[in-house]
């Protein structure tokens, strides 16, 4: 059972993060504290989750849903309100926490397990299950630095999937892995569900939320704005997104500037070293500024990898700015890590409409009967897709992937690997596709 009563959480945004001791001493001598702003990431959240319920938090980036999950997991402490939980909680916010490359898979299983709150004995009884779930065989006795990235990822998943808590908190982690593996994870989650465990997930996938959850909580700028059945709440979320999209950009920006205290921001909790080093004056959570900027996402088995993607215009120059009806080449460079009988390479050009991706155009080597394989391990290959862009003005996103012949196993799946713009060029036209009419006057 989870009971959340009037919970608020604020973050401190340090004005200048890298204050040294010298500056601090000067500060202290002058009787000042280090300057920071406070941002309320969550305000007055109230709900309860019964035992055995499956609940999803949805909302835009920066709406506070990950923060809420971390509060439930005890990773963050609320500034106001109370959270009461009964039962053993496992937070699966990241995979393979504490993994050390020099330790074997086996040692890492015990380490990661103990981090999730399971002792050696409990992990030992699940050991075989984890190894077979991860499909890594005898590699389990080798250091994980010898693993492919796909194998390490699957091991992390498997530990997460085989532990046995009363309450499971999952943050998006299941959105990676190849499709077959994802299916396996979903099946496993269904088993969790039927065995009466409480599951709380944060997800961007409307499909998963609709199919899997019994109740959905919608967050917007740190407030709970809707709660209820999956279908209706997901619809509300989409309505909310499209409302926001329709607002002109200037208006949105000024709105944020006039009322910064009111807006709930979520600090990007997975800020990398570089992020921190680079952040000096403002630690503006990037997600909060541009809520709909699509993230680069990559997963797959990595038996083949796309190592380079370049966009070129009709003159062969590299660019990301095009004009309507210009010719564009997309060059993919690939490396094959395994012998593969019949790989296919494909692209999609996509666009954001109302917060959702709309596929504008897709193509792959198979549809044109172009055979890349069989390829040998270590082989490198380039593919060029050249096409016209009879498309309206806007920002477009490129999706590129390598898959097996059936398109079931994705070796490398790269969402939003590049973005590019298209600008209108005279003569004018209207609509979604430039059909490039020829107009004749017919004299009767």
């Amino acid at each position, binding site marked *: 059972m989870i009971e959340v009563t009037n919970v608020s959480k604020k973050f401190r945004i340090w004005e200048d993060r890298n204050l040294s001791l010298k500056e601090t001493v000067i500060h202290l001598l002058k009787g000042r504290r280090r300057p920071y702003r406070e941002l309320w990431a969550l305000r007055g959240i109230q709900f309860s989750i019964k035992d055995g319920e499956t609940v999803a938090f949805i909302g835009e980036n920066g709406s506070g849903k990950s923060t809420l999950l971390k509060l439930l997991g005890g*990773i963050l402490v609320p500034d106001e309100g109370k959270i009461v939980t009964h039962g053993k909680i496992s937070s699966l916010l*990241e995979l393979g926490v*504490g993994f050390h490359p*020099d330790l074997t898979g086996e*040692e890492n299983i015990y380490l990661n397990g103990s981090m999730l709150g399971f002792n050696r004995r409990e992990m030992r009884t699940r050991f075989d299950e984890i190894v077979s779930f991860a499909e890594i065989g005898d590699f389990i006795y080798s250091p994980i630095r010898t693993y492919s990235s796909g194998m390490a990822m699957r091991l992390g998943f498997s530990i997460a999937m085989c532990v046995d808590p009363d309450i499971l908190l999952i943050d998006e982690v299941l959105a990676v892995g190849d499709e077959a593996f994802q299916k396996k994870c979903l099946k496993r989650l269904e088993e969790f569900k039927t065995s009466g465990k409480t599951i709380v997930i944060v997800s961007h996938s409307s499909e998963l939320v609709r199919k899997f959850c019994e109740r959905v909580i919608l967050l917007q700028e740190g407030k709970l704005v809707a709660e209820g059945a999956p279908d209706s709440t997901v619809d509300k979320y989409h309505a909310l997104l499209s409302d926001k999209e329709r607002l002109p950009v200037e208006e949105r920006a000024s709105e944020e500037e006039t009322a910064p205290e009111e807006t709930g921001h979520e600090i990007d*909790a997975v800020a990398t070293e570089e992020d921190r080093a680079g952040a000096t004056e403002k630690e503006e959570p990037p997600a909060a500024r541009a809520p709909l900027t699509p993230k680069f996402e990559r997963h797959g088995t990595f038996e083949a990898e796309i190592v380079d993607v370049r966009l070129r215009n009709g003159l062969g120059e590299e660019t990301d700015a095009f004009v309507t009806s210009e010719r564009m080449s997309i060059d993919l460079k690939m490396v094959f890590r395994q012998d593969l009988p019949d790989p296919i390479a494909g692209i999609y050009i996509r666009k954001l409409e109302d917060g959702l991706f709309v596929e504008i155009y897709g193509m792959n080597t198979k549809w044109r009967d172009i055979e890349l394989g069989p390829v040998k391990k270590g082989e490198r290959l380039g593919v060029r897709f050249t096409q016209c862009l009879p498309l309206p003005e806007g920002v477009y996103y490129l999706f590129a992937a390598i898959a097996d012949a059936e398109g079931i196993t994705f070796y490398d799946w790269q969402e939003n690997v590049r973005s590019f713009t298209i600008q209108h060029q005279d003569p004018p036209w209207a609509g979604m596709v430039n059909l490039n009419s020829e107009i004749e006057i017919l004299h009767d």
Partner: protein
Amino acid sequence: MRGLEILKYRDLIKNLVSRDFKTRYKRSYLGILWSLLNPLLIIIVYTFAFDYIMRIRVKDFPIFFMCGYLPWSYLAASLGLALTSLSESGYMIKAVYFPREILPLSTILSCLVHFLITFLFVFPVLMIFGYFPTWAILALPVIILLQSLFTFGLCLFLSSIHVYFRDIRYILDVILTIWFWVTPIAYPVSLIPDQFLFVYKLNPMTLFVTAYRDVLISGSFPIPRYWLALSIAVMISLALGYFPFLRVKRRLAEEL
């Protein structure tokens, strides 16, 4: 309550210590031997410098120095490593809940393992010089425990401060150097001028070093006054450590 929670996570502590232990000397040829070789070499160097060149009058200098230097390097190594134990574990702290003191604690424990390993040559060397263990050896585990608790307090203090003030690392370097020389490790207390004696009495490491020497060299139990002083030092250190730690802990996952 707090103590009980740590107990629930004892497997995590064990695994973190063994992770550190297994990976520290991975891919080095001599591996764990370095834990023995390193202090041995230092003892030889100091013996050469202080015994042969500067001719400090101490009976069996290598033994005398060894019994001070090994506990000292246990402290120094713990402080140096535990300093960043919180600030460099952001990825764990942000992903999973566990009692955060486990991070500095497991660092100390892994240093403790290395310290205990050095006893593999401490006892043979003692015996070569004609010092055989007496019943006072029973006090040794207690002294080691007290020193570990004392170190834990300081590590809590330092690792908490380091989250906000990275400069503490450089300050620590200076402090450790000074602390080493104001502790009678390479020279006996008897050489200290009377007017500075109070400094030595206030230095907890003097107490610890003297206690180790009592037990290992003199073969006698430390006197009750020592035990009292050591216990007070431990309590002060733990209080000093928990005070900033409890304040920093609440916001740790967001500040890293």
